[in-house]
């Protein structure tokens, strides 16, 4: 039996990579991809706890399915917004979009 700690460590590493990407990359598509990475880190956690957690339960796997679905929908919406943004502003550089600044 593999210890749960390994799964959690993998998820944490994956999450941090995603977080690093979200916070540092200027290309919005990559930021989006990094978010997907973070979501997948969460999924790993959910599946791991569902299989070998202290209160092993099917609910975790169900939630993973939900997360994947929502992530897909989110990616679709986000990409649509990105395209619209690119058409309007000719750039998807994060630093150039601070219109809502005070």
């Amino acid at each position, binding site marked *: 039996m593999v210890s749960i700690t390994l799964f959690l460590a993998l998820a944490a590493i994956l999450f941090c990579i995603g*977080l690093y990407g*979200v*916070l540092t990359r200027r290309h919005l598509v990559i930021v989006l991809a990094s978010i997907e990475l973070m979501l997948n880190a969460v999924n790993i956690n959910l599946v791991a706890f569902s299989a070998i957690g202290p209160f092993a339960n099917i609910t975790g796997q169900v939630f993973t399915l939900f997360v994947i679905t929502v992530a897909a929908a989110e990616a679709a919406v986000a990409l649509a917004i990105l395209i619209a943004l690119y058409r309007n502003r000719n750039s998807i550089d*994060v630093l150039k979009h*601070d219109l809502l600044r005070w």
Partner: protein
Amino acid sequence: MCHGILKEKGVGMMHYAWLIPVFPLITFLILLVAGRVLKEKVAYIGIAGLALSFLLSVLVLLERIGGETYTYVLNWMTVGENVVTMGYEVTALNAMMLIVVTLVSLVVHIFSKEYMKEDDRIHVFFAYLGLFSFSMLGLVLAPNILQLFIFWELVGLCSFLLVGFWYFKPEAAAAAKKAFLITRIGDVGLLIGLVLLFNRVGSFNYAEIYTAVEMDQLSAPMITTIALLIFLGAVGKSAQFPLHVWLPDAMEGPTPVSALIHAATMVAAGVYLIGVMYPLFLASSTAMTVVAYTGALTALFAATMALVNNDIKRILAYSTISQLGFMILALGTAGYVAGLFHLMTHAFFKALLFLGAGSVIFAVHHRQDIRDMGGLWGKMKVTSVTFLIGSLAIAGIFPLAGFWSKEEILASTLINGDGFLFLIALVTAFLTAFYMFRLFFKTFTGEFKGGDLNDPTEETFNEQAAWEATQSAEVGLDAGYEERKVYPNHQEVPENEPRENAGLMTFPLMVLAVLAVIAGFINAPFLGHQLEAFLTAGLNVGTQPHGALWLAFLSVAVAVAGISLAWAMYVKGFIREDFFSSKAPSIHKLFQNNYYLDDIYLAVFVRPTKEISLLLWEMDKTIVDGVITLIGSLTSRSGKAMGKHQDGQLQTYGLVTVFGGMVVIGLAFAVRGYFG
């Protein structure tokens, strides 16, 4: 007597006494609404209203003689558990006052019809006169001191309006303001006095106040305080020292106004106030002493200022102050009847003198400097003779009205006062005779010094010139030229000689002259002191002092001495006119400048107040407002400083959030060991 007949008929005139002030009020309202339409007819309405009031006053007086005091009140306001009432009351004193006020007001109305006929705003003038008559009569009829105060303020308002009637003259506007403000100082004293009375007596009614004083419900210091506060009101209204400075300036108003308000009626209200509050004053010897000395000093000071003035109206104004001082001196020395008797006689002869002065001023085209007059005796017969009668009356020559009342004042000063007061009274009587005849001789005898009446010289005090000067300075000559028609004196026929005025102006003079001759007899000793019996019946105002026969002779002798001195100086020239001024120029200057009181007030009260206010305003803008502005700007500046870090970059925000979260988690570990 007539009252018997009236009683048989059961008319009950006193019940209708409330109508007396209502008639002038109605004329006021009519003129206010329809004045512009009625134009020159307004005078008839005003005269008719006052004539009705006068007739009713006569009927009321006749019924009151031998009758009882009549009171009628309504609830006015509830104050806690106390109910304040308003209404009217006919007492002996106010029955007499009604006659005085309505009569003088009536003759002044008649006089004004002619005097003001050329003024565009004659309807406003008569409206104000109506309002004044209403207020003054309301004051007189008041059954309680609060109602008196209400009308007291209203007459002050009318005085303000009428002094400032020629509002476009800066002097008139300033004088109106000054009159209102300075009397207001006294009024606040009166207000506080009556508030203190109310708090202790629970009522404003005269009757209840008298009872409270009799039953010793008030402590002695409180009685003195209240009496002095009420006296402060009288000092302001009756232009006593040191609040007298407004009255000479108030002469900026039209002359009929000076006769009515600033000689016969309103300024006497202070004396009347002391009269109705007399039991309170009698209960405090301190207050009586203050009253007596204020009156005496005012009488003397004002007389000295009258000696050196050259403006015919201002001389009369100082004379009024002096005579009011006499009345107050009489009241302060327990001469209740003497003071009020002098109030009545003075009302008649001083109104006569003012109207006479008005007649003169009208004839010489609105000049008021007596140095530009002279020689009017032959040219203005009626005015001259009546003016002489008035002067003799005020000087106290037997058997004119002033003699009887002045003699009683001297008697009360001698018997109840001290030697000093008597001496002041005597000196003042001498000065009165002197300055009045200085005025008379310079105006009516000798040669006319006015020159061509249509060529007013620069030295002349002249409303027209003053007005035009201000106009040309302000808006150019054209506007000033248009304004001319508002002046009542502007006669189109060129003439170089003053001449007697129309009958409407001389008739009032004759009426008042007759009264100035006979009014004194109602309290003459040989007729049994009729007025005294009438006024003191049922009132506890002490025994009235009566002088011995030698006092009457002394009083006449002093008056004759004064007249002779004036005759010697101004007619015969035995003594040079500038004898006094050259011997003691500094004193002469002191008198001429009103003892520098105006300047002292300006330096002591007006300027410091203004300085303090300006300082406070600066403080208000810098400190009080500054603190708030500082707090506001601190907030917005710190907001701006923080705002710089809001760069709009999602990634920065995310970074901060992540670090913040890590710090929170770290803290949780550090403080509590673990999440447990």
